[in-house]
């Protein structure tokens, strides 16, 4: 069955941005500000991307609350949080530019919560030395996406909503276009373009317990990989320590770290503040020594006063808190539904409702729990992937000419573990840079590159295949299977014997996915959409499993039972790097760029 390619709707833009979350919107705004034509493509309706769900805040060293803060400290916290596996240049640009990007959002209409003297208010978050997260209650992402969306729309960006890109098309080694379909009716669309910015978010749907939505099927990672780009650090998947654990329908739903930032306490079923027992030696000096000192810090934070008390242990980095909770539960000190307790009810209830309104409603309506009256039950949930497409720090370009990447889909910025609030800032810093990079690149091309019709044809056949098969497995069953494999064999704690099984099972599953079948037509058919998504998901599943098995140490979010220590000598200076080699996934451990001396010095002082 061949389709007539001429009959497909075909549009032309200087730059195509795949994804309309914070990163994609910011990139598109920048391309358009450079005077080029840009098409913004997204799988959901505009304004519904993951960014809308972000709660706690955006990290930027504005020093509005803690005057001691500055980009150097933000940079150091980010690198320490990432166990120094970060691309130092990205971390540096991020820390330096985040304040300007936040102020720019304010100028574009974002209405952040204020300090008493009328500046943007900042709250504490795990791993950040100072109060650094600019926020709007616990709906910061909504504020950000709406601001960018309105800015973009009024700037004349062309938006293709509910349209899924399934293939990047090349002219020789450089990008030339993309194929997509509208979810509404399966109608195809061809984009001719000089450059593509991938801003398609993460991979969380490879796990069953996740805070991520149906959109997080690794599309960008997989499209880039297929097109010849490299993926790095894919073993580093962030399990957020506090997801809801009950009722079953909301298991995995996020409980913002803002709860702990506002003074939420973690306890086990014996009533112990167990986090005191899990602080790593290297950062222990930054945390309160006992319950009394932690309380002094919280009291001062609530009153908006300065204190010499150090922050509570609940504000340790996410990898560490997630492991602690997992261990408490495993050793029998968990809550009734297999989590631990997170309590903010000891505070004034009006304050809790004001600071954490959506958490209040989320628990009240979905779990019948009043968080102003009693504790929540929480446990780890898959949340974010630090790894992703390898890019150049300054321009966000991949190794494929004309393909750029920014936001969660890109790797390097966060190293082995991301600090809370550093994603929203990452989106605007590198969204803008990717937009600039793509615009510069597009300006440099004299004519529109041309893709091959045969590539389009092959992509269409692949897309249609599940509808044309008369037998084959159901996509929902295969997705469930993948979730089970990944959770069982490549979860929070990992060891070689299990991961080897995981890798084998992923390989078997890949063969089944090639035979997937679905009924119904092309009209808004989620089953058919999932068939395509599975192809992307399996690339991510394989990438995570293979990289995780190869890294024989524990670092940040990657915790090995068989290699429990950080092995700086052997593993501290390499990224697991994946690329497509025929039908195989090629794994290499490539050296990290080393930090210049002036930045290294920042780690000598405390």
């Amino acid at each position, binding site marked *: 069955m061949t389709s007539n390619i001429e009959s497909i709707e075909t549009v032309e833009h200087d730059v195509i941005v795949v994804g309309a979350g914070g990163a994609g919107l910011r990139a598109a705004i920048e391309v358009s500000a450079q005077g080029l034509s840009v098409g913004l493509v997204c799988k959901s*309706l505009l304004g519904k991307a993951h960014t809308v769900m972000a709660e706690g805040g955006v990290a930027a060293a504005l020093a509005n609350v803690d005057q001691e803060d500055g980009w150097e400290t933000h940079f150091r916290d980010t690198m320490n949080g990432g166990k120094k596996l970060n691309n130092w240049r990205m971390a540096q640009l991020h820390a330096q530019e985040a304040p300007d990007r936040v102020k720019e959002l304010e100028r*574009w209409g974002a209405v952040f919560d204020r300090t008493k003297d*009328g500046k943007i208010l900042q709250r504490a978050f795990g791993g950040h030395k100072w109060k650094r997260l600019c926020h709007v*209650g616990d709906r910061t992402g909504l504020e950000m996406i709406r601001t960018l969306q*309105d800015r973009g729309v009024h700037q004349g960006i062309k938006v293709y909503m509910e349209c899924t890109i399934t293939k990047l098309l090349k002219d020789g080694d450089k990008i030339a276009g993309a194929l997509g379909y509208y979810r509404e009716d399966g109608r195809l669309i061809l984009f001719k373009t000089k450059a593509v910015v991938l801003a398609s978010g993460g991979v969380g749907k490879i796990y069953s317990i996740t805070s991520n*939505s149906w959109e997080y099927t690794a599309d960008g990672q997989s499209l880039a990989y297929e097109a010849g780009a490299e993926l790095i650090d894919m073993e580093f998947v962030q399990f957020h320590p506090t997801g809801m654990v*009950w009722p079953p329908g909301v298991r995995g739903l996020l409980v913002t770290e803002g709860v702990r930032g506002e003074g939420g306490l973690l306890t086990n079923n014996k009533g112990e503040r167990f986090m005191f027992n899990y602080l790593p030696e290297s950062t222990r000096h930054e945390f309160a020594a006992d319950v009394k000192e932690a309380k002094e810090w919280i009291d001062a934070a609530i009153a908006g006063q300065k204190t010499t008390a150090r922050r509570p242990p609940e504000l340790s980095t996410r990898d560490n808190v997630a492991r602690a909770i997992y261990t408490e539960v495993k050793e029998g000190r968990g809550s009734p539904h297999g989590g631990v307790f997170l309590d903010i009810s000891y505070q004034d209830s009006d304050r809790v409702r004001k600071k954490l309104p959506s958490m209040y409603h989320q628990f009240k*309506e979905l779990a019948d729990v009043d968080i102003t009256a009693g504790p929540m039950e929480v446990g780890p949930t898959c949340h974010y992937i630090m790894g992703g497409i390898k890019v150049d720090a300054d321009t966000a370009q991949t190794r494929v000419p004309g393909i750029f990447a920014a936001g969660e889909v890109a790797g390097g910025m966060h190293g082995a573990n991301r600090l809370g609030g550093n994603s929203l800032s990452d989106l605007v810093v590198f969204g803008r840079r990717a937009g600039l990079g793509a615009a510069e690149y597009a300006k440099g091309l004299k004519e529109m590159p041309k893709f091959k019709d045969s590539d389009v044809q092959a992509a269409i056949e692949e897309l249609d295949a599940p509808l044309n098969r008369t037998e084959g497995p159901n996509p929902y069953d295969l997705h469930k299977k993948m979730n089970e494999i990944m959770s069982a064999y490549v979860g929070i704690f990992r060891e070689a014997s299990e991961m080897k099984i995981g890798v084998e099972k992923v390989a078997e599953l890949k063969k089944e996915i090639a035979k997937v079948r679905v009924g119904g*037509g092309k009209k808004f058919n989620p089953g058919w959409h999932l068939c395509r998504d599975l192809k992307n998901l399996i690339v991510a599943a394989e990438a995570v499993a293979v990289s995780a098995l190869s890294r024989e140490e524990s670092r940040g979010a990657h915790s090995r039972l068989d290699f429990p220590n950080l092995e700086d000598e052997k593993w501290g200076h390499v990224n697991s790097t994946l690329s497509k080699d025929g039908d195989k996934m090629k794994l290499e451990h490539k050296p990290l760029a080393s930090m210049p001396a002036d930045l290294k010095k920042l780690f000598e002082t405390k």
Partner: protein
Amino acid sequence: MSESHSRSKEATLKVYRGDGAQGQFETYKVPMEAGMVVLDAIHYIQANYAPDLAVRWNCKAAKCGSCSAEVNGHPSLMCKTRMDHFEDGEEIVVQPMKTFPLIKDLVTDVSWNYRVNEKIKPFSPDESDTKEWVIYQEDIERVQEFRKCIECFLCQDVCHVLRDHEKKDGNEQFMGPRFLVRTAGLEMHPKDTADRLDYLKNEGHIGYCNITKCCSEVCPEEIHITDNAIIPLKERVVDEYYDPLAKVFKNMFGGGKNK
């Protein structure tokens, strides 16, 4: 909460299946789980009986405004509507929003809303004011209330001007409560300098709203759409066009926009 009790039960859902041209309600049995919401039941149906059942969702936490539908006649977010709110054995009828053209099953074409949005004058601060902004919390509380909107369009769905009188096109277009909320958020922003009153009166036709408050009742974000957004905007329009003296007064003594 009697978990074991509710686990063994089964719920009956009648879900609209079809497109704009034709369709009917299909009945499905779904095992009840503690704390289950209507969206969970829809997903169960998808995974077990009808892989092609069309539905929108993203966050499952009432944050994105994707899963709007009419459940037993009430415009609701499916991810927030608990199954145990219904009586034992009560049939749960799930159908798409009525005000917008149907695409398939529970998915409607809401693109009209995006077109209305584009016409509203964007945030327009004084570009010459380059100093760091000082804005006090008490001056933005109201604006923040409006900015909580998750664009679920349930208020647009329930508003009789759009639902029954279909004032969506041409020179009779009513912008609807969602976009009155957006406009209010811009008009009341302390740093905004634009004037949207002419648009409100002559293009958005704020006058069509007769303050039935149905929109406020369905808003999942509990925005006081009518009291806090629409009525104050109506007053500004009245002052501007029908009571010039009141306008002068307001501008002199605050409460109006300082231009």
